[in-house]
């Protein structure tokens, strides 16, 4: 899978997930500055694209360099999966950028 943006940082590892793959966001609540919204933790979606690899924001928030960079994906969730009482079409979706270390195979 081609990342949308070329990475100019040392990268931790090759991307583990490919486009269309089912993933689940880890349901955990570590302390610190986290860019994975609470409302999406524990939910399953599909990989929409690999954005590239970027410094880990959780490390950057601690004044460290965030390297090696972590693969960042855009994950697509069905609104009805995220909010059981969602009012709208069954096809409505939500897309969120999530770093690889927050994802596991669903």
């Amino acid at each position: 899978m081609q990342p949308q943006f070329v990475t100019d940082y040392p990268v931790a590892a090759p991307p583990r997930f490919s486009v269309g793959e089912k993933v689940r966001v880890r349901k955990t609540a570590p302390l610190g500055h986290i860019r994975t919204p609470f409302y999406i933790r524990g939910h399953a979606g599909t990989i929409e694209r690999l954005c590239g690899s970027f410094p880990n924001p959780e490390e950057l928030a601690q004044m460290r360099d965030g390297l090696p960079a972590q693969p960042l994906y855009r994950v697509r969730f069905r609104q009805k999966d995220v909010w059981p009482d969602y009012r709208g079409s069954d096809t409505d979706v939500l897309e969120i950028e999530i770093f690889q270390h927050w994802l596991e195979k669903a």
Partner: protein
Amino acid sequence: MSDQGTYKPLSYFQLMEVSLRELLVEKGVLTEAQVEETVEDMRRRTPERGAKVVARAWVDPAFRQRLLADGPGACESLGIDVPKLRLVVVENTPQVHNAIVCTLCSCYPRMLLGIPPDWYKSRNYRSRMVREPRAVLSEFGLNLPAEVQIRVHDSTADMRYMVLPMRPAGTEGWSEERLASIVNRDAMIGVDIPKIGKEPPPA
């Protein structure tokens, strides 16, 4: 600016800004000129930049393809400098309507749309746009049929998003400038769609 006015003490953040700026200049980290240049640069960024990109994408299919695949590269080819911007352009179609939000803070494609409107940063918009987008869009006057898929993009990390709206019917043969005049900021956030009727007459 008028010299007359009522004196107001600086707010906490204004005082912080002045103190930090003066300190950085005093220590030789920055010059006053650099600060002014950066402020001017921020002022020059307005939604007209985004509208220019949209209008070009409407008239030039090859540019549109490039914009969707490589947003920053496409902007730079129009002479719009977007340093370090990881721009993802999402395209509206008769089947899909896109809208942008940042639930964690207020990430926004400032290089193309300028300073975000206050409502974009409000807790109301940020929390409700991911939860009940159809209700929020309806409050903006946009009622989309149930068969149109709504795709909400929560910009939580390094990407910035811009919506490429659909070109309205009745604009055939329009110049790029005239097309750009009907593309407003809200249409590029995805809470509005371009309409004809209120645009200035052709030059």
